[in-house]
């Protein structure tokens, strides 16, 4: 069983927060990661900033813009990841990245260095399973025991899920709503059925993301989802408090506690 898969269990739902690496700088995002893990994160998603994030809403777009105001280099990303991993070696780290920066860096080199830095999974929103590059990357990651985590959406039909199945490992990232990342007030009514179907097709844990921000939403969805992914709401805390690092750390830890504590099987 992969390290990621072992986080999930039938009795409780995992909390998976997201931060954009480099926002507002590479040193402080190590602090943010530490605070979120101390607050109860079970897996941490690390966003690699990209100039053209078409699947992301305004909050993460702004985070990437702030991050890219620092000189970007993949080596710096890997180095920062290594620091986070050294602080909490038992918490699986997952990259969420657009495809171009890793293609540019080189698959093999990237897969090797990411593994050494402590990465155990990859999510690439603009790399559908049915491309030649997915096959190549998947093999490269599989050789190193790194999971390729796929997105399934309300628009993904059953036959496509079956196609994705051959390339998916770790967990499935179920996109709860149409559109891009960002906080939303309401969640679609058929979410429970869709997640159930996705679990049946993949025989993998299914985590829900996109649009989740409040503890009551997280609590409700965690009744049937194996994990809850929260990006924009976390990133908003950094946007609003990043200039005051100690306050930002405190708020992130408190937020993580409030979400984590609300999830199925995790109430203290």
């Amino acid at each position, binding site marked *: 069983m992969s390290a990621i898969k072992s986080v999930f269990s039938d009795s409780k739902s995992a909390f998976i927060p997201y931060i954009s690496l480099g926002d507002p700088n590479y040193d402080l995002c190590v602090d943010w990661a530490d605070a979120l893990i101390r607050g109860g994160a079970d897996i941490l998603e690390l966003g690699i900033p990209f100039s*053209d994030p078409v*699947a992301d809403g305004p909050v993460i777009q702004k985070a990437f813009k702030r991050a890219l105001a620092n000189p970007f280099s*993949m080596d710096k990303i890997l180095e920062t990841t290594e620091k986070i991993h050294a602080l909490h070696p038992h918490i699986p780290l997952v990259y969420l990245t657009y495809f171009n920066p*890793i293609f540019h860096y080189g698959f093999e080199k990237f897969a090797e260095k990411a593994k050494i830095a402590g990465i155990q999974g990859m999510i690439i929103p603009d790399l559908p*399973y049915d491309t030649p590059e*997915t096959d190549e990357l998947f093999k490269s990651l599989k050789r190193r025991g790194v999971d390729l985590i796929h*997105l399934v959406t309300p628009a993904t039909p059953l036959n*496509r899920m079956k196609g994705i199945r051959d390339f998916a490992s770790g967990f499935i990232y179920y*996109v709860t709503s149409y*559109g891009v990342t960002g906080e939303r007030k309401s969640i679609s009514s058929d979410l429970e059925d869709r997640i159930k179907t996705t679990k049946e097709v993949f025989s993998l844990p299914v985590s829900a993301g996109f649009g989740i921000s409040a503890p009551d939403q997280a609590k409700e969805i965690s009744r049937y989802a194996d994990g809850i992914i929260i990006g924009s709401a976390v990133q908003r805390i950094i946007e609003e408090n990043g200039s005051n690092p100690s306050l930002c750390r405190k708020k992130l830890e408190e937020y993580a506690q409030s979400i984590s504590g609300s999830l199925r099987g995790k109430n203290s």
Partner: protein
Amino acid sequence: MAKERSFTEKEGYFGDFGGRYSPEILTEALIELEDTYNKLRKDKKFQKDLEFYRRNYIGRPSPLTYAEKLTKAWGGAKIWLKREDLNHTGAHKINNTIGQALIAKAMGKRRIIAETGAGQHGVATATVGALFEFETAIFMGEEDLRRQKLNAIRMQMLGAKVIGVSSGTATLKDATSEAMRDWALNVSNTHYIVGSVIGPHPFPTIVRDFQKVVGEESKKQFKKENDKLPDAVVACVGGGSNAIGMFYGFLNDKKVKLYGVEAGGRGSSPGEHSATMLFGKTGFLHGTKTLVIQDDGGQVVPAHSVSAGLDYPGVGPEHAHLHSTGRVKYETVSDQGALDAFMEVCRVEGIIPALETAHAFRFAKDLAKELGKKKDILICLSGRGDKDVAEVARLVGLMQGDSI
């Protein structure tokens, strides 16, 4: 149930370029579009409707003009112009929007969206929005809204909602990203009319198919007039829709030299140009694998051109392929060169060309001298320059009442 796709299929690729690299939420819509288009392209009624609108609404065929005065002024090869500027709405863009609007109707979509740089694609989309009663939204960078105010007003008059995009460089690249985000949210009732031969499969193929009328007509017209083919064909390239349309008529005629002209901007440093063929590297942008102007970290570098329509850091994947095979030669012309050619064509030939096309004119001027008097050059005059007059006047220091 739709046929299952696998990565082994090479549909949608042009050599190593192309493909479908879009967020999963859009994939099913792209497959639906591909399936619908594959049926419609063989459907007689669809082709008949397309032909009807081309003839009676766009005003096709557009004329082929022998530019006698430019030929004389440049003192070399004969210059011929394919007059896409004389289409309804003033550019080649309407060829594509009419076609895609008919597809959107066939798919039962009620809303259309588009991105636009110089505004010609926005105007052409707003036009079909009015004609076929779609709710229409156009995404346009704030910087382009400033440069192309006239077109933004035209879109609004035609009933479209114009949405300013302030993210990134506030130009075409960012308008395209924002249109993709809107599509992801509204994909069930909305068709995204991509305006150039860019984006995920099947867009580069669909747009090319609707633009190839330009080259096919040109070839017939030129043959009828001269009983031969032109020696060289020149077109400007941003995303590359007018160029691919023009080139497509001549790709198999190996003796016809094909030239795509990109924006050399104001220099060779990153951010100073939009010369993707010269400076781009293979990458992934807006759902396609193509040449992209990017830095050492794989981040897309902002493009620059005096012409909002060429200001894009990528290029259509089929152009990237034609570049790699050497069938088409890609050249650059600077901002200043384009401005000079713009003014020259206005004064000499009595035609105000789009600033995009002015790049093609400037290159053709040198080529005419190089080829000599016995040869013929065909230029795709992709659009008229009314939209550019205020910006050009500002740049060349022309004020009302001044003589130049």
